[in-house]
């Protein structure tokens, strides 16, 4: 039962009391739009490609959404009960509240308070400015995207004027990205032969001063659709600082890694514009003074400061009624990188092909994400067929290839066939 831990018992209880008791009693007319209850039950079965008897994901899920809306008020309570047949990465039973929030909208402003997902950015499959929420990467990006992004208790205020929108975000409690353990290969290199000990991470205290804040301004000028954003936050991924210690009993040395989270500021922006029959898209994110691990985590200089730039340029177009999106992304680290764990430049190319057939009953998706230098590749292919308006079957595969410690190759154990069955309902 992990939801109390992630939402915060106090926050959840207060919100539930307000939205389900105080608001309906105080303003019964605000709920005249009635309560909608809907959801789905689904089954996700992902047998491993190299061992069909074992699964990467074997999950049954029941989703229930409660949505109440009035003329200017809305609340949403989204709950999930999961049973995980494979509990390598997750507990057998999980009861989750991914989102619970209330919102109010006036003519020019909008406010939403509660546990929610906030999505920035314009990239497909890349998280460049989509940095507000931490991610659940225990199964990498195999689950549905809305389950990968972790909702956080936060307040979001938007103000609109014409085609311009200004948005402020306040997240009062830090949450880190969930990693899949040592399988991810996310740890710094251990060139020595001594044993490795990973200590509990040093997380920021839940204080007002440690809260996260950001803003975003987006607008439309002619055909240019663009945004600029800033986010003062804690990095969702840990940085490791190492030291050599001696075991008390044996006196043998060990490398002790201390994960910690860095306070960072990120500037970003995105644009899209149709040009003839092509849609151009781009996005950029810049983080100054990012702490990066060196190749010697136990050295006197286990981490150094570098500026970090990520961007992509992409184009969407149509061929034979298929929508094709190509993105070229690059990560650039400033200064000398010869003693870092990562290269100065990382080049990524993604290709997405989408096509619907049989009057949108059949949806075909091919997504390939490749890294030039490491020959890392992730291929995701899916065929989703709507048997009826409520029942959908999805068949496909995920293939990871490349170096064992590469960005994508490290997930080779997640290479799998996928079968999803989903039945949607409403009351």
């Amino acid at each position, binding site marked *: 039962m992990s939801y109390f831990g992630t939402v915060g018992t106090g926050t959840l209880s207060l919100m539930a009391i307000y939205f389900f008791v105080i608001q309906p009693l105080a303003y019964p007319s605000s709920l005249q739009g009635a309560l909608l209850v809907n959801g789905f039950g689904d089954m996700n079965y992902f047998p491993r490609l190299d061992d069909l008897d074992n699964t990467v994901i074997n999950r049954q899920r029941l989703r229930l959404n409660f949505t109440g809306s009035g003329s200017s008020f809305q609340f949403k309570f989204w709950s999930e009960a999961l049973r995980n047949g494979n509990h390598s990465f997750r507990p057998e039973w999980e009861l989750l509240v991914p989102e619970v929030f209330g919102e109010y909208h006036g003519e020019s402003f909008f406010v939403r308070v509660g546990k929610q997902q906030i999505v920035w950015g314009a990239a497909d499959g890349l998280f460049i400015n989509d940095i507000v929420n931490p991610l659940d990467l225990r199964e990498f990006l195999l689950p549905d995207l809305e389950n990968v992004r972790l909702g956080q208790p936060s307040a979001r205020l938007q103000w609109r004027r014409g085609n311009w*929108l200004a948005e402020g975000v306040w997240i009062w409690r830090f949450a880190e990205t969930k990693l899949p353990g040592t399988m991810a290969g996310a740890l710094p290199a251990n060139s020595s032969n001594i044993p490795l000990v990973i200590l509990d991470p040093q997380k920021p205290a839940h204080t007002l001063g440690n809260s996260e804040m950001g803003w975003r301004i987006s607008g439309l000028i002619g055909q240019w659709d663009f945004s600029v954003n800033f986010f003062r936050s804690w990095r969702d991924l840990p940085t490791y600082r190492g030291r050599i210690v001696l075991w008390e009993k044996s006196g043998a040395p060990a490398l002790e890694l201390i994960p910690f989270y860095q306070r960072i500021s990120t500037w970003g922006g995105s644009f899209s514009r149709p040009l003839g029959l*092509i849609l151009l898209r781009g996005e950029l994110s810049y983080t100054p003074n990012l702490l990066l691990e060196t190749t010697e985590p136990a050295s006197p200089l286990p981490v150094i400061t570098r500026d970090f730039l990520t961007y992509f340029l992409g184009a969407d177009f*149509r061929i034979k009624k298929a929508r094709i999106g190509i993105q070229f992304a690059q990560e650039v680290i400033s200064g000398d990188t010869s003693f870092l764990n990562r290269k100065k430049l990382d080049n990524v190319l993604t290709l997405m092909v989408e096509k619907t057939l049989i009057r949108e009953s059949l949806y075909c998706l091919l997504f390939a994400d490749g890294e030039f230098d490491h020959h890392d590749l992730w291929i995701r292919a899916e065929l989703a067929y709507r048997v009826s308006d409520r029942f959908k079957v999805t068949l496909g595969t995920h293939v990871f290839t490349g170096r064992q410690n590469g960005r994508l190759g490290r997930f080779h154990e997640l290479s799998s066939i996928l079968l999803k069955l989903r039945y949607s309902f409403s009351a």
Partner: protein
Amino acid sequence: MLKFPAQKSGNMYQSPYDRGLRTYPDHMKRKSQTASELAFLLLLVFLCSPLWPSMDTDNLKRSKLTAGDIMAEYHTQRNSRNERSRLTMKLMDSRYRERSRKLEQITITDSDGNQKMLIIVQEPEDIRGTAFLIVEHSQSDNDQWLYLPALRRVRRVLPNEKSDSFLGSDFSYTDLETENLDHYKYRLLGEDSLDGNHCWIIEARPADEKTLQETGYGKRELWIRSDNFVGLQTRFFDKKERPVKLFRALNVSAVNHSQKWRAYRLEMKNLESGHRTIILYENFKIDQGVPDWIFTRAYLERRK
């Protein structure tokens, strides 16, 4: 000039204008044999002359309308200051297997006459919340955005994606747009009677290659009612001018207090596959107020 069917066949339609113009003077001639009677009649005609325009001005004007005028009137009739409706879209294949979608459609027309339209999917469950926004521009291409709840992302509809099926129906994205009259060349083909209504038949051809590529239609033939300018039927032809789709508007009636006419049942038939899409409107709320801020990309993003 227009040719009414009554003049061609004599048994289909006779306009009030024709009746008045021919019978009134003849009738007068039979009655006016003397000078005094003639003077009296002239006086009567003179005194009544201010009433003549009010009786037949509309018909007189209609008889002089060009194809462009008719399309402009058709455009005016379709547009309202704001409008909200709920509808059920039924998709039926040639074997009458049926799927349905429930939608909410909201439109607004700004002071420049540009229309904005928001369509929100209510059912089926797995695409609930999908929203489609069209923003017309008089000086540039229309913007079309699609909000996909599964991705929580707003993305633009590509220019040549506009000829694609909307939600699996026989309507394309471009069929939903109010057409920009400058992007087509119109020609009056003639007249016809459809469902007992006199109609003008207008041919619409793309004025440029870009419109042709975006819409995928080589031409269209529209049947437009002469009394209220409601489009009752459209035949769609592909780039090689082969007929591909047939649109019908049925159950046309005036919407209360709005002086606007709307069809409560629309049918679009794919002539190649036999697939049909039927749209049944539950209601129309015209000029009863719609907030303009919902027709923004920002509103779609709020749905995340």
